[in-house]
Every structure is written in structure tokens, then in C-alpha cells.
């Protein structure tokens, strides 16, 4: 079905009552008062507690598993291994199994599982299981894993054919134009290698589920998935593998954060199903904090080689990117992030000649998954850092260089993206203006000129611990001041109108209206804290001329809600929003048509606004909406109530083969500017100022939108400066907040958002998606600012004090 077209004139016709207002989150009250029901709160009658035994080897053959002692513990109701359960395969390449048979390939491999009447008994039973292993060679470095003769992580592919090496057979290649010709036409070329490691989502609500079968073998899975419809299909497939004929229902509890971590199903969910089916009782598996770090899938680590060139005027001539990704031992969505990394690689800035290659490699490390930004933060770190290097070679200031090459509206990029609305230049200009970019640069140039005459230093001297110390003493320690400042910027491109990375990028909505003017909206989408329920309320309320208090959004139950591709790719406001909008417009038409009959007035003169059916032709006929609802319902004949269903499928292209086409209905742009202070004596980086300009199309809810940008910015700053999962030969050394240095509220930076509103023609009220962009350009903006401050180019994340200090020591020959 084609979506009804709303013209700009129609949008402009009336002032928006609800859309564009900073309405607090729908669930703010229940969350702050502790009434929200998380997985941790869920208990069902007769529920058992499941627990998983993980491998203590990175790579080994399972010789034997002795569960006899565990089975004898009173209160233990089931002890499962791959040897007494049906095989359940899952994941993007179906190379993962719920319980591992014969062989373990990473420390987090699930070897056995128990269900018991208490969590303590389950833990005791796990400890009573004895597994004998025979160590096998392991490989932890993706580049070593590609060498000939490297130990194979998987000897067979999922089809049972032998693997030649550890490379995944995935077609992640893109090219446009002629890179060699572009290179030949270049006056300047910059190249660099960049590396990003493992970071994880740090959801404050740890992962878990409750699996419950009814007597007819129908499964209800209480879940925290971000993809209710796709997870339902996955679980249904697992039921088939289990030989169980029932139907699956997925019901969500409140989520304590998602950030992409729940974009795939996990072994623990299938294990809960197996335990629940074996025991005929509901089984809950709930991760503790260490498990959350250890057994959920982090962001995909990358090693990126990049070359970019420009002509004498500073126009980009080519971009050549190749990368190796550490896939870990199994394959989840992380292996598909290169398809999204192609987007900024091909289309951020105007560059005709582009080449992109990515190789995903099996290792015996933890397997990676999706995380906010889906690969674009990693590749943007390389592109935007390298862009500054190129600009310097060309002798052009970084901001000017970016403006010269910035994307423009109504263009088609080398990958075939149809860019209509484009706020790239306005975002760049907004950051430059807010930071007084030209003034800062001029002041620095003046200082440098002063330095040449012996009057100043090659940096901004600010108050430091040694301020006020006579210059002679300063010179004894070093010629340079302790703390120096610099500025940097970086831009982003992300999908803002859904992303067809699956064969459907659609979302369904059902709407019904009762006699009192209360509206239930059943959306296939879900909320993990980003505020989708609030956005849908606003869109439906606006369309029906009602207050948001009349709109109830029902999400997270696959028995009730229509299909949706899930909360990812910054798609929900756009796709679920459009779906709700078009369903609401159908209801609106139904109400207005009925009202025309009931009020005996032409339809064209009627409007829904402020809770009223407003009659422009005859103001005396203006009446409350609910009166029309009741008259239609309780009529003497032709009784009706108002309800509608709409499935919105964005008319975009599923990219394959040459990866060219238009895979989003809108593209989101942004620019971050940052001023840092580098402590040269400790390697500490302080963020002095942080500006985040985002092209959002239209802010449906500026309050929540700012929250997204602030949260994204802080998560990005943590990624850039502090967060990393530290592995020693596959073993996670820091599965806790003590050693995984997630920033706290007291570390938070005052991110200053700037909302650039350039409406997307196809977006609900002009909106673009903004869930991910907040953290995409953070790391390169900071790296560029550090370079500006101390002249050191950091090419590896995170830029923790120990790394920064080591780089400074090396650069200064200390």
C-alpha cells in the first residue's frame, strides 16, 4: 500500500499542537518511582532459576562432561548439555549453538546449564559439573588468524563443508569511480592506520529472560529483545529444532538499556527454552553484572587502513579504505556492520572515486555484535582523523577543508543515496560559529607568530599547577607548559529514514478509538528507553487533534502488536512514526467522514483539533470528538467504531551485489566540535567544551532529542577516552565497572546540542532518525583536538591517559 502523501502546504496549514513540544517521557513516572517492571522484577508461579556453565578454555575439545553430582542435588530439576538436548543453531550464519558440542571456541561458550528451585542451588549445581577438556591451538589476533596455517576456529562451515581459513566468506566490497585515476589526479595524499577495540553497551539492566510453556507447548518468552518480531521468528525456528509444535509469543518487560546489544538472540534464551521445556516450568535466566560484560556481544573491533587524496584546491579526489574486523568465534550482526560502514566511506563528503573492502575474521575471542552506530563510529574515526591529516598536507584549515567538500541537498552519492534534505553545511557552520572557530585559529596563529620572535609557546598556556613559577624553573622541567588546549571537529552521516538491511524495513500499527476519545495504538516497534512510545503518542495525538493523555501506546507483545523490523538503525521515529501517522490519518478520515454525516455538513470544512471536531463552515456545529464517536457507535443504523491498520514499508533498496542503491528514506548529518585540554605530564584529556550539531529533520520532541544527543555524546566520549574491554588471550580481564572505566555522572561533560531542522520530505512531520548519530563523530573530533593541542596523532582508541602519555613520551623522546 502506498502511503498517503502529505504535502508541505498541509503541514504548514496549521500550527502543531503536540509535535515539536518537549513532552516528558511517557514512562518517566513509573521509572523514577520504581514501579516499572524490569526482567529483574518478573516472577511467575513455580518458576525455576537457570544458570549456565561457561568454558574455562579459549579453544579445546570437550572430552567428557560429568553431570551426575549436579543432578543429585535436591532442588535441581534439570541439567542440560549438548549431549542430552536437540541441537539449536542460531546467529547470522547459523554457526553458533545454544549448547556447545565436542568443542569450545571462546571462553564464553555455554557447555552446560541447570534449572533449580533457587539461584543458589543452580549455582551449586553448576559448580558440581565436571568437564574434561583437551586444549587445542587458539588464535586471538585477526591478522594472525588470516595467516596460512593458523588454527581454524571452525573446521567446517555451517553447511558442513571444510573451511580453508578463518576468513568469513562475506562480500563486503564496494567501489565507485576510479580510485587509481583519483590518486593520479591528487596533489596531496594522506594515509593512516586506525584501530578500535572492544567496547560494550553497559546496559544498566542486565540481560535475562523467562521462558514459559503452556500445556499445549506454546511458548511465552518474556524478553528484553530490541527485535520482538525477528526474535519471535528465531524462537519459532528453535521450537522446530526442538520438535515442539507450539506457537511463540514474545512479551517485553521494561528494558534497562539496549544500544544494539539486544539486536540478536542469545544462547541463554535458547537455553532457557530448553530448560523450561524439559522441566515443564517457567525458567528464568538473569545475568549478573560480570556475565553481562562477559556473555553479551560487544562492538566489533576494527583495524582500518585509509588513503585519501585531494587536488591542489583541496577537493577530495579519492578515498580508499580496507579493514579487518575481529569477528570472534561466532557470527552475529557485527559481521554485517561493514555494509553500514560503506555509507560514510562512500558518501560522507563529496568524493567520486571510492573503494571499500572489509574482511571479517574468526578468532577465539568473544564474538561481536551490533552497537549504537553499527560500525560507523569506527570508520568515521578513520575518515575524519585522516581528513585532518590530509587538510594539513594541503595547507588548508580543517573547517575550510570540510566546507569545501561538504555534502549538499538534492544530490546522489556514489553509492546511489538520494540525498534530498541535507544539513551538512548548516551543521558545520553552526559548530564553527558557536566555537568562534576563526577567532580561535587566528589567536593561535598570532601566538605562533609571537613564538617565532621568542615571546610565546606553541600552545595555549592555561592555568596549571606550575603557573606562577619563574620561567627558569619551568625550563628546567621542560620548555613547554603542562597543560595545552586545542580544538577539533568531525562530521557524520547516518541513515535517518530507516535502513533496508533486512528484506523488510517495515512496521505495522493498529489503532482503535473508544467511545470516550481514548485511543489505543498497537505498534510493532519497541522502547528501550529512547522514548518511542512518547513519540508515537505525539504523532497520533497531533493527527487526531487530541491531547497526548488520550493516547495509549501498546508495544512489546507479539500476540497483539503487528510486525516490525526492530529498534535499530535509528529507524523507529521515522518508520514506526510514519506507520502510526498513516494509521492515524485513516482513523482521522473515518471520524471526519462520519462527522460530516452526523453534523450534516461538508467533510471539507471539518477538522480535528483541540479535542473537537471543528466546523469551519458553521462554527455552531463544532462539537467534542467523543460526541461524534458515540453517535457513530450508538447510531440507530450503520453503527461503527473507528479503527485502522497500516503497514509502512519504506520504498528503499535492499543493497546487494554492487551495494548501490538508496537504502534509506532520509540521511542524517551532523558535526561535533570540541575543545580539549591535554595534560602533557599525565596524559589526561579534559573536555573543555563540546558542541554537537545535528540535522534532525524536525524535532518531534526536542526534550527527548536533546537527551539522545547528550547520551550519545557522553557514550562517545567514554568510548574515545576511557572505555575498553581488556582481553588476555581471549579472557576478559575487566568484567566489572571497577576496571571497565565507564564514565560516571561526575565525569559527564556539558554537551551543547544544536538542532538543525531541515525537514525530510518523507519523514513523519519532517523528522529524521537520531538514535545513533550522537556518538558517531565523537572520537575523531577529540583526536583532532588532541592533535591541535600537542601535535600528536592518536590512531588507536581509547585515548586513555596511559596511551596518551606513552604517545607523548615517544614523541618528545622521553
Amino acid at each position, binding site marked *: 500500500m502506498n502511503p498517503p502523501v502529505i504535502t508541505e502546504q498541509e503541514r504548514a496549514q496549521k500550527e502543531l499542537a503536540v509535535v515539536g513540544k518537549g513532552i516528558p517521557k511517557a514512562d518517566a513516572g513509573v521509572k523514577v518511582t520504581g514501579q516499572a517492571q524490569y526482567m529483574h522484577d518478573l516472577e511467575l508461579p513455580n518458576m525455576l532459576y537457570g544458570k549456565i556453565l561457561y568454558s574455562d578454555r579459549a579453544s579445546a575439545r570437550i572430552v567428557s562432561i560429568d553431570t551426575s553430582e549436579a543432578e543429585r542435588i535436591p532442588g535441581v530439576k534439570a541439567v542440560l548439555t549438548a549431549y542430552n538436548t536437540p541441537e539449536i543453531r542460531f546467529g547470522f550464519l547459523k554457526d553458533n549453538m545454544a549448547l556447545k558440542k565436542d568443542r569450545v571456541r571462546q571462553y564464553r561458550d555455554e557447555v552446560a546449564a541447570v534449572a533449580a528451585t533457587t539461584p543458589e542451588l543452580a549455582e551449586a549445581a553448576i559448580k558440581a559439573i565436571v568437564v574434561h577438556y583437551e586444549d587445542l591451538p587458539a588464535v586471538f589476533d585477526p591478522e594472525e588468524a588470516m595467516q596460512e596455517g593458523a588454527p581454524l576456529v571452525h573446521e567446517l562451515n555451517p553447511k558442513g563443508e571444510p573451511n580453508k581459513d578463518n576468513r568469513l566468506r562475506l562480500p563486503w566490497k564496494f567501489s565507485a569511480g576510479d580510485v587509481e585515476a583519483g590518486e593520479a589526479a591528487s596533489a596531496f595524499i594522506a594515509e593512516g592506520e586506525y584501530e578500535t577495540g572492544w567496547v560494550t553497551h553497559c546496559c544498566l539492566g542486565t540481560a535475562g529472560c523467562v521462558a514459559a510453556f503452556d500445556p499445549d507447548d506454546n511458548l511465552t518468552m518474556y524478553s528484553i529483545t530490541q527485535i520482538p518480531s525477528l526474535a519471535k521468528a528465531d524462537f519459532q525456528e528453535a521450537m522446530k529444532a526442538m520438535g515442539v509444535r507450539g506457537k511463540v509469543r514474545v512479551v517485553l518487560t521494561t528494558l534497562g538499556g539496549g544500544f544494539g546489544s539486544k539486536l540478536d538472540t542469545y544462547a541463554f534464551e535458547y537455553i532457557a527454552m530448553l530448560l523450561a521445556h524439559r522441566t515443564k516450568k517457567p525458567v528464568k535466566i538473569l545475568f549478573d553484572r560480570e556475565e553481562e560484560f562477559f556473555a553479551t556481544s560487544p562492538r566489533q573491533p576494527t583495524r582500518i587502513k585509509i588513503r585519501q587524496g585531494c587536488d591542489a584546491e583541496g577537493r577530495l579526489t579519492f578515498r580508499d579504505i580496507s579493514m579487518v574486523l575481529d569477528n570472534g568465534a561466532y557470527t552475529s550482526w557485527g559481521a554485517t556492520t561493514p555494509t553500514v560502514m560503506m555509507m560514510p566511506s562512500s558518501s560522507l563528503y563529496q568524493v567520486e572515486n571510492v573503494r571499500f573492502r572489509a574482511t571479517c575474521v574468526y578468532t577465539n575471542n568473544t564474538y561481536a555484535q551490533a552497537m549504537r552506530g553499527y560500525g560507523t563510529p569506527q570508520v568515521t574515526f578513520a575518515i575524519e582523523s585522516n581528513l585532518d591529516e590530509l587538510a594539513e598536507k594541503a595547507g588548508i584549515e580543517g573547517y575550510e577543508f570540510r566546507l569545501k567538500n561538504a555534502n549538499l541537498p538534492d544530490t546522489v552519492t556514489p553509492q546511489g543515496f538520494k540525498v534530498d534534505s541535507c544539513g551538512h553545511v548548516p551543521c558545520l557552520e553552526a559548530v564553527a560559529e558557536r566555537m568562534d572557530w576563526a577567532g580561535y585559529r587566528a589567536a593561535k596563529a598570532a601566538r605562533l607568530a609571537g613564538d617565532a620572535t621568542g615571546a610565546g609557546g606553541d600552545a595555549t598556556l592555561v592555568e596549571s599547577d606550575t603557573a606562577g613559577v619563574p620561567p627558569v*624553573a619551568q625550563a628546567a622541567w621542560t620548555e613547554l607548559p603542562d597543560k595545552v588546549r586545542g580544538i577539533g571537529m568531525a562530521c557524520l552521516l547516518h541513515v535517518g529514514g530507516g535502513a533496508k538491511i533486512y528484506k523488510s524495513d517495515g512496521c505495522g500499527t493498529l489503532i482503535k478509538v473508544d467511545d470516550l476519545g481514548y485511543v489505543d495504538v498497537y505498534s510493532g516497534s519497541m522502547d528501550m528507553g529512547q522514548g518511542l512510545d512518547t513519540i508515537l503518542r505525539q504523532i497520533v495525538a497531533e493527527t487526531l487533534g487530541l491531547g497526548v493523555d488520550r493516547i495509549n501506546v501498546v508495544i512489546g507483545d507479539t500476540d497483539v502488536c503487528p510486525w516490525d523490523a526492530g529498534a535499530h538503525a535509528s529507524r523507529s521515529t521515522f518508520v514506526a512514526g510514519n506507520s502510526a501517522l498513516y494509521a492515524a490519518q485513516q482513523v482521522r478520515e473515518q471520524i471526519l467522514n462520519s462527522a460530516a454525516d452526523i453534523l450534516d455538513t461538508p467533510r471539507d470544512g471539518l477538522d480535528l483539533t483541540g479535542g473537537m471536531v471543528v466546523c469551519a463552515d458553521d462554527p455552531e456545529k463544532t462539537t467534542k470528538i467523543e460526541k461524534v464517536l458515540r453517535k457513530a457507535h450508538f447510531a440507530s443504523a450503520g453503527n461503527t467504531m473507528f479503527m485502522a491498520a497500516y503497514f509502512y514499508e519504506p520504498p528503499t533498496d535492499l543493497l546487494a551485489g554492487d551495494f548501490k542503491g538508496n537504502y534509506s528514506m532520509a540521511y542524517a548529518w551532523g558535526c561535533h566540535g570540541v575543545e580539549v585540554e591535554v595534560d602533557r605530564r599525565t596524559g589526561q584529556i579534559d573536555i573543555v567544551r563540546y558542541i554537537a550539531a545535528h540535522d534532525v529533520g524536525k524535532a518531534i520532541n526536542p526534550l527527548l532529542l536533546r537527551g539522545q544527543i547528550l547520551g550519545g555524546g557522553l557514550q562517545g566520549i567514554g568510548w574515545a577516552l576511557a572505555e575498553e574491554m581488556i582481553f588476555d588471550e581471549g579472557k576478559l*580481564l575487566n568484567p566489572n565497572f571497577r576496571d571497565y572505566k565507564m564514565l560516571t555522572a561526575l565525569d559527564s561533560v556539558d554537551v551543547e546540542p544544536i538542532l538543525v531542522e531541515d525537514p525530510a520530505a518523507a519523514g513523519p512531520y519532517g523528522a529524521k532518525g537520531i538514535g545513533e548519530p550522537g556518538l558517531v563523530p565523537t572520537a575523531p573530533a577529540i583526536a583532532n583536538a588532541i592533535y591541535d593541542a600537542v601535535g600528536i596523532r592518536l590512531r588507536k582508541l581509547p585515548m586513555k591517559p596511559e596511551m596518551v602519555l606513552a604517545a607523548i613520551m615517544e614523541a618528545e623522546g622521553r
Partner: protein
Amino acid sequence: MRSFRHVRATTVAEACALLAEPGTRARANAGGSDLLGALKDGIYPEPPDLLVDLKTIPGLDAIEADEAGLRVGALARLADIARSEPIRAHWPIFSQAAQAVASPQIRNVATLGGNLCQEVRCWYFRYPAGLGGSIDCLRKGGPRCPAVKGDTRYHAIFEGRGCFAVCPSDTAVALAALDAIVVLEGPGGARRELPVQDVYTPLGTVLEPGELVTAVRVPPPAEEARSAFLKFTVREPIDFAVVSVAASITLRDGVCTDARLVLGAVGPRPYRALEAEARLIGGPIDERAAVEAAEVALAGAKPLRGNAYKVPLARSIVMRAILAALEG
């Protein structure tokens, strides 16, 4: 977590007797902010079967200051030490070090004795059992230290022997710079007193079975003493020191007559930089002196392959601590 017996002691003697009970693996517990986490993570190969609660011993949380100096009971909470008026006035770096620990919630339960005797934070030692089994290490009686060939970025650059975990206590660093004495009491009324840095060994502490830290005594400060405590962390709050430094300097007529420079998180115990102290004594304290003392302080450092950065970092913090003490 393995189940255990829990006994509330009402006297030090009773606690010591319980802790020394033959055939039991007993541990003392006060605030529980360290021990309970370690038990939940299952880090001990042989977990305790008896916890002796010290919180029920009356009077062990007293903070008393007079002409003879300061006496703080082992059960004094870090929050109380941080806000104690006499400590803030006369031994400010002790208060600052207590305030630098963790979060308000933890400081409200964590005690001085526990902060001094807490287990090291080495990630091999602390690896949770639930994730494929805990890691055996020298400190836990195992054959070798896995950190030596592993990731040592937060490990020792001084005095590591066999085990390279660092003493994580912030208060111990400040107390060492204040010449504090730790009072240990054991079964049968045994009692001994040790300088705070002598409590630690490369593999743990000198505490005998049944022995407890019951108090800390700090001598009165010299009238002209000035001090500073600096703690370098990756994030602002709720973090252990990468390096900390407590400096106490006595100046008479512009000349340094006495100095204490103690480095934290660099070795198994608070590390007193004796040669650097000697370098400061007898001269004026200015930036040049601070720089030189910092060089001397780190001259004997033996970084591991993963923590060379800690040497220049510690040097910077020593220098800044000396200069900050002048301000203090």
C-alpha cells in the same frame, strides 16, 4: 556464593579467638564493601566458612585527637574520617585520602581497618569464578603470577616480588606520610605496633591468623608541616588510583627540615621515596627542587612491560604533590 557461619563479636578478644579457631577458614568483616564482593565473585579457591562481624564491638570506631596525637579505631568509617574536624585541621591529607575513596555510599560503610586490609584489585586475582572459573595465582597459593606475561598496565613499578599487585589503599598512603602506626591485636591479648607500610608484604599482609587491625595512631604534626595528597585516576570518582602521592614537608625559614614522600598504587605497599626525601631536606623547595626530587623518587622504578608509562606519570604526580604541599 558459598554459605558460611556468621558470628557477631562483642569484644576484640572474642573476635581474635574466633578468627584463630583451628580448622576454620575465618575472615573478619566490618563494612563488607570489599569482602562481600570478593565472596560473591568467588575469587577464593577456599572460601571462608566463618565470618566474624566486628561492627558489634563497641567503641572500636572512636576518633580521638589530643596533644599526644590522633587515635582512630579500626571501625571508624571513611565518611567519618573525611569529615572529622580535628583530622581536617591537623592531618588534612588523611581526611583527603579517605574522601578520595570510592563513592559516598561506600564511604558510609567502609571502615579504616577494611581500607587498610582490603584485597588487591589485580584483575587476575579478582577474576570471578562464575565466568569459567577463577584464575589461580601466586597470591592465592598457586604456582605463578599470570600478570607477568599478561596485562600489567595497573601493576607495580616498585618492590614487586612474585606478585605484582599494588596496594589499593588510599588511606595507607596518607598515613605513611604522617608516620602512622598500626595497632594489631591477636589471640590471648597479643598486641604489636607497626609503621603502616610495614603491614604489607608482596603477597599480602603480616597479619597472623587471629590478628586484627584495631586502631591507627598518628603523631601530632610538626607546626610548620605542609602536606598534599594527590590521586590520579582514569575517571573522576569511584576509581582506584593509577598513582597517588602523599607529600608532607616541614619548612623552617624557607628551608626544608623534614619531608615525607609516599607513592601509592606503585607497589605492594605504600612506597616511601627515602632518597627523594633526603634530597629535599636542607634546601629551599621550589620547582627545581621538586623536579629533582621527583626524578630521584622514580630513579629506582622497575616497570613491567605493560606499565612503563607509570614512571613519568608518577614523577609528574610527585612533583605536583611537592608543589601542592607548599600551597597547603
